[in-house]
């Protein structure tokens, strides 16, 4: 039965589009057009260094990427970066959240202290880290840091110390956010569930694994998702911490380097666009997890 759309329903639909209009309008200008530009550019040999109009080159930019060792290296480094930092953030964040789950004297203060790295402008705290880890040679503790840098670099190759410091910074800042997110999650779980678990099992580890983790799953999934996307998009932190001398390129920094320093807009756009599908897959997997957690909770 194809019922005629009633007046009330028509009103709702009009209202919905009206409410979405500002967002869609703004996105049309500042998202749709740039993304469209990027897609188009990835199919051309556009470059600010080249005279004349850009030529359409089809998928050759993408084909070149597939055989480009630098691309695969950047992808590998990015995956390592995303996995290691996400694991670190989750472990530390979960630790913080569990420590703060029960009230104790001064909890509010500790909470604020833990929250500070996230709330602090990354653009400047990253300078603080740079200063701490790469002091100018005449500084008081420079020899100590110099030795550390020497050992790390000689063990893992040049630039390893800089890359390690990027990861340290990322974990330091990100675990702060994950902690707050998970703490919010723990607080939203009815305490009866934990009390019930206390009666069911004596082992704290089992309780943690069988009760806390499943209940926190949606929060964990969100945390991992945000962590991975930020790792892929990371540009400024890496740039700052390595003072622009990037030895271990991420997909994001490599694309930036290709576009801005080398002037190859086409390949750079193709590279940047390859991230999209990958992140989409990550998103879908995480939401599947999220969904299952929801359903089993219901």
């Amino acid at each position, binding site marked *: 039965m194809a*019922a005629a759309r*009633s007046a009330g*329903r028509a009103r709702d639909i009009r209202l919905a589009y009206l409410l979405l209009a500002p967002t869609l309008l703004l996105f049309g200008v500042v998202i749709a057009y740039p993304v469209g530009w990027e897609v188009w550019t990835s199919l051309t040999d556009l470059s600010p260094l080249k005279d004349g109009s850009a030529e359409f080159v089809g998928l050759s930019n993408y084909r070149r990427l597939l055989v480009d060792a630098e691309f695969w290296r950047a992808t590998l480094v990015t995956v390592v970066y995303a996995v290691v930092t996400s694991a670190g953030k989750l472990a530390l964040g979960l630790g913080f959240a569990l420590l703060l789950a029960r009230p104790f004297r001064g909890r509010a203060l500790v909470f604020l202290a833990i929250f500070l790295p996230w709330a602090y402008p990354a653009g400047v705290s990253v300078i603080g880290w740079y200063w701490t880890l790469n002091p100018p040679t005449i500084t008081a503790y420079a020899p100590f840091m110099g030795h550390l840098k020497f050992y790390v670099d000689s063990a893992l190759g040049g630039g390893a110390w800089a890359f390690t410091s990027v990861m340290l910074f990322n974990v330091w800042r990100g675990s702060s956010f994950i902690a707050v997110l998970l703490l919010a999650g723990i607080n939203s779980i009815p305490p009866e569930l934990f009390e019930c678990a206390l009666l069911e099992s004596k082992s704290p580890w089992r309780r943690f694994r069988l009760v806390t983790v499943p209940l926190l799953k949606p929060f964990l999934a969100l945390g991992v998702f945000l962590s991975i996307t930020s790792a892929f998009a990371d540009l400024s932190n890496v740039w700052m911490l390595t003072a622009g001398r990037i030895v271990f390129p991420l997909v994001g920094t490599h694309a930036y380097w290709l576009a801005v320093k080398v002037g190859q807009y086409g390949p750079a756009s193709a590279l940047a666009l390859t991230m999209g599908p990958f992140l989409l897959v990550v998103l879908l997997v995480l939401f599947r997890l999220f969904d299952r957690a929801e359903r089993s909770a219901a």
Partner: protein
Amino acid sequence: MAQVMMKDLNKKYDEVHAVKDVNLHIRDKEFVVLVGPSGCGKSTTLRMVAGLEEITGGEITIGDRIVNDLPPKDRDIAMVFQNYALYPHMTVYDNMAFGLKMRKFPKPEIAKRVQEAAEILGIQELLKRKPRQLSGGQRQRVAVGRAIVRHPQVFLFDEPLSNLDAKLRVQMRVELKRLHDRLETTAIYVTHDQVEAMTLGDRVVVMKDGWIQQVGEPLELYSKPANRFVAGFIGSPAMNFMEVAVAEANGALWLDTTGLRVKVPAPLAGRLGAYKGQRITLGIRPEDLHMATSNDPADYSFDAIVEVVEPLGSEILLDVKVGQSVIVARVDPTVRAKLNDKLRLALHPERVRIFDNKTELAI
């Protein structure tokens, strides 16, 4: 001052046909209760009257206006929700005044009406509080108060008492009934509790799977259920059902099953003629059973073995085994029965109900 008419009302969601061909005429000032198990379509019907659900097919008339395309605010109705739906950021006074403010009533008139409603419901001293500072019963009163200040044409109640504890529920039930007698406004009330339905409704509408099963006054539903579902749904403890065969012997019809053989009472015999040799369902209410005495004719009595004894004070409920089936009998508190006792029970022949096995309709 309004009647409510539903004509061929239908509601379909993507895959579920929630309300099917509902036709109902609710008269002015009438209190009608929609009752049924969850998922029977009663709430959906109410929400279509309110304008909160789209009508897939059919027509609803309030007063003399067809309201299908009117937004809720223009239907001149008020609704009380199961979770009370009090606005948490407003005081009790503002909650009650909200509807009048939206309709641009002058301030003194609003104050007068809120005071009046607060007096009726005994919540004058709560007016300055926020909803979270109130108990469940108080919230319930505020929700009702918010509905009555508006003097709407129709009150809609969606399981308003379900979130209250048992004692409070009984108390509020009485108050609602008194309130309706006083305000004389048409009311549609949805509940899954058949006791609420029976005590409150001028008429009761029993629904199941989206269909109306029966419409009638409470006692009519009780004594003349149209089908097996209504018979089992109305009344507590529920009616006993037993599958029996219709047999002819000695020039009379008999209902026959293991452990039970009763003569078909005269008024029923005519209607049962066509079922000779077939199986039907026999329905007996627990209160229509009693301990057999020498006065009871042997044709209407049978043996039973006691399985559970539930003394309630004013009466005793006996779960007894008759042949293969277990039925409940409601007997006098003076009866002394123990587990595994063998009793002889008798039934009221004229109160027995019989149902077609296939259609489940009353015969």
